[in-house]
Structure formats: C-alpha cells, structure tokens
C-alpha cells in the first residue's frame, strides 16, 4: 500500500533502558504495565464511591434527583464525551506511532490528545459558568439556588460538582504530565530509552476517558424523564 504521507522520517530504534532491580527488559515492561493497572484499580474505586452516593441519592430522593438532572447541561456533557472518545483515539495513535519509532507522528498525536483534553476543560469551564449563571453552584451560595424548595436536589448537584470536579482535576494532571512527556519525547533518542512511558501514560489517559464514560450517564442521563 502506498504510504499516505511521504514526508515522515524513517522509523527510529525502539527500546527501554534496563533498571538495576530488573533482570530482563520484558520483566520491566510487564512490571510497569502491572503497576499502572493496580493504580487504575484505586482510581476506579475512588470514583466508585462518588457514583455510589449518586445512586443512593437516586434511591432516597427519586423525584428531586430527576428535577436536578434536568438542570444539568445535557448537550455540553454529550459533546464532552465525544471529545474524550476522540482524544482516546489520538492517544492510541501516539502509542502505535511510538511502537513503530515514528517520533514526529507520535509527538503530533500526543499534542492532538492534549489539545482535545484542553477542549474538554474549556467546555467544562463553560458548563460550570452556565451552572453559575443558573445559581446551581453549591458554595457560592450568596446567589439564590435554582430549586430553592427542593433541598434534596442540592445533594445531587453537590455530588455532580464533586464527581465532575475530581474528574477535571484528573484531566488537568493528565494534560500536565502529557506536556512534560511530549517535551521529553520530542528529544532525539528518547524512543530508544523510554518508549514504555508512552504506553503507561496511554493507559492512564484511556482510563480518564473510561471514568467519564461511566460518570456521564450516571449523572446526566439516567431517568431524566
């Protein structure tokens, strides 16, 4: 098949530097991946607690939770999901490029992923601004609350802010790490020393997207009716 883009540099050697406590490189790669999966378990349980609170509130106060859910900006949340799914695609692109030693393409994919992540944050900030206008923000309570007589809905809104806020914080740290990684990875010979780091970061990024795929329906979607 004819190469689509011809100006990409030839593939560079891809390897990792062996650390002293490991005996083989395969062992080091396996250990790094294993460690990240263990870390992702703790992230999942962290968000699991928040989703449990949302589900219990739905059981205790069904009516007010539905009322509160209608106040969430459905379309902004939906477009954010699309943005994150695409960023997950570009991250896969970065990983595959790093495996094949295409350094420039990898850096471009990583910048695209960071860009899409920032788009998500911008949309999120805009959504928070719209919530602020609609007097839904919990602690800035000098503004009257949108559903004043419905106290239980305030619980759900608080849980919404806690969940999306914590996810936002994870995204900000993800983008920060991504920028640092991209700066390092763009240096010559990086791929022959630390290619593994791109894959490990990729797991973390996919997981942020996975958490949003769970948070979005639980907060925005379920029984909006």
């Amino acid at each position, binding site marked *: 098949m004819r190469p689509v883009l011809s100006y990409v540099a030839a593939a560079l050697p891809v390897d990792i530097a062996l650390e002293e406590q490991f005996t083989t490189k395969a062992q080091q790669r396996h250990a790094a991946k294993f460690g990240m999966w263990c870390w992702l378990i703790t992230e999942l349980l962290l968000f699991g607690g928040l989703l449990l609170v949302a589900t219990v509130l739905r059981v205790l*106060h*069904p*009516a*007010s939770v539905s009322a509160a859910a209608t106040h969430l900006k459905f379309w902004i949340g939906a477009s954010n999901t699309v943005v994150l799914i695409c960023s997950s695609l570009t991250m896969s692109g970065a990983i595959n490029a790093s495996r094949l030693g295409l350094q420039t393409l990898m850096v471009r994919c990583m910048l695209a992923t960071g860009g899409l992540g920032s788009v998500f944050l911008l949309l999120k900030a805009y959504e928070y601004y719209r919530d602020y206008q609609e007097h839904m923000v919990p602690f800035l309570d000098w503004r009257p609350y949108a559903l004043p*007589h*419905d*106290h*239980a809905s305030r619980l759900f809104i608080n849980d919404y802010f806690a969940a999306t806020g914590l996810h936002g914080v994870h995204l900000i740290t993800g983008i920060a790490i991504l920028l640092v990684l991209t700066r390092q990875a763009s240096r010559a010979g990086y791929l022959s020393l630390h290619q593994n780091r791109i894959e490990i970061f990729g797991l973390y990024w996919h997981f942020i997207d996975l958490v949003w795929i769970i948070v979005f329906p639980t907060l925005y979607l379920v029984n909006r009716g």
Partner: protein
Amino acid sequence: MKPDQQALALWPTSASLNAAETDHLVFGFTALTLLLTVPIFIAITVFAIWFRDGRIAHRSYRENRNRLLEVSWMLIPFLLTLVFFYWGARMFDTQKHAPGDAIHISAIAKQWMWKFQHPGGQAEINDLHVPAGQPVVITMISQDVIHALFLPALRIQMETLPDRYTELWFKADRPGTYRLYCSEYCGTDHSEMGGYLTIMQPAAYQRWLERSSTPGSLVAQGRAAFSAHGCSGCHDGGGMVRAPSLAGLFGSPVPLASGGTLVADDGYIRDKILDPGRNQIAGYRQLMPSFKGAIDEGEMIALVSYVKSLGSAAPSEGATP
C-alpha cells in the same frame, strides 16, 4: 442493676425476657468458645513442654498436611457457630417487630439530653418511667447528631438519626430503677447524657402519670399545632384548595405519582410535612409548602400523633380521596 449497689458487680441484672434470653445466648456461645479453644491452649502448653528442644521424644513420621483434618476443623466450628447465628437472628427479628398493643412513647435526643413524651402529654428529661408487663414502643429521633438510646438492663439499644424515625420496643417485667445511657459518641457531654429507667407496676405507673403535670395529651397538642400552622385550612375540607383528607391515612397504602404505593407510617407523615415534594401522591398537584425549620421535633411528634388519631387504617366512610 440498682446503682451503687455493690462495688464489684460482674453481671448486669436482667429486667426483661429478652434480656434473660440474651444472657442465655451469651452463656451458650461462651461455652462453645471454651469448647473450641481450651483444648488448643492445653495442647500448646503440653506440646511446648513435651516436645521441647533437646528432649528425646517420639517425633517420627511428622505429617504436615492432612486434607480431611483441615477441612473438618474448619467446617465443624463453622456449623456449630451457625446455631448461635440463627438464635441471635431470630431474637433480632422479634426485636424488629413491635406488637400492636404497645404504649407509644416518643424520645427526642438533643446534644446532651433526652426528652421522653408519653401519649398523655407528660414529658420527662433524661429519665423514663414505664409500666412493667406491657410492651412499650419508643419512637426516637435526634435533633442534631447521631445519638443512641441504650438500656443495658433490657440488653437493647437503638441509634437516633437526625433524618428519620427509628424505633425500639421492649416488655420489661422486673420493677426497679436501672441506668439509661447514650451509647453513640455525640460530643462534649456524651457521658453526661443519661439517666434512670424506672420500671413500675402498672397501677403505680398510672398514679405517676396523673401526678405529673401535662399540658394536655399529645393528640390535643397536635390538634392545636394542626390549626396553629394552618394545616386545618386545607386538610379539613371546605377550603378553596383541594387537599387530601387525612382521615384513615395512617397505616394505609398511599398511591404515588411515580407509580407504586407507600405505607403511610410516622416517617412518611414527618417527611410529608418537612419535604412535601418527596414521594408526591397520585391525583393531586403538589401545592403544600415545606414546614422545614418552622416545626421542631417536639411539635412534630404531637402533629404526627394527631394525624394518627384521625382513625387508623380502618376505612372510615366519607373518606374523600
């Protein structure tokens, strides 16, 4: 157990059948525990001496796994202990279902004091007088943090939650004065928040009720609050607003707007008053204002007993939907 009776009491006196049965359960379980562990302690000491280092002893063919032995010494104790699980669960079940003819006493826990209200309106602080031989149900709630009403002589306790009613019932049968505590940590004076539970003969209890002053029975106080807060304007019919009649409400299933039904118990009535938007009922537009903050727990108990007095589940005629 009478306070400052003997210096070293090792066992609390039991003032009810449930307390006696709990004691038997504990004795039985202790016996099983000793049966399972004393042989171990003896075996360890004997082995430590018999097989001590340097002593010539018969140590050959030392096996180090025996599947049958290992499975049996896991299953047999488990099955034996399950007997006490079942016994405890059965007692727990009777604890959860109060008999119908019980006297209803309400308890309000507040940071660092108890307030008990008898049906006749008599209120007591920190102390509780109950008749012997009759089942008593205590419906309790907290006004701030989580407390717990603990009656060691009756071997029961129940936590009071700030957001809903919890209840506890007992049939005491040994007259006497016993201690009453708060057993869930609730702040500075958690240890001061207690008093005396006095179990009296029914006749003495009646005399005590008449003697203590009462601002009118709970139902009377409830009716006063019912009109004072303007509930009668809508719910007594005749007003412009179409509101559901409360006659025969208590105990009957209420059809909900979101489908399904909910049995109207104390908690349902209290939630309706404080948060009308919750569990909206079918066939009525939600117009009722929330009384959160306007009615404190004491007045709420009076209101709930008044609504309960408007005919229990028996379908009284003329009850408009």
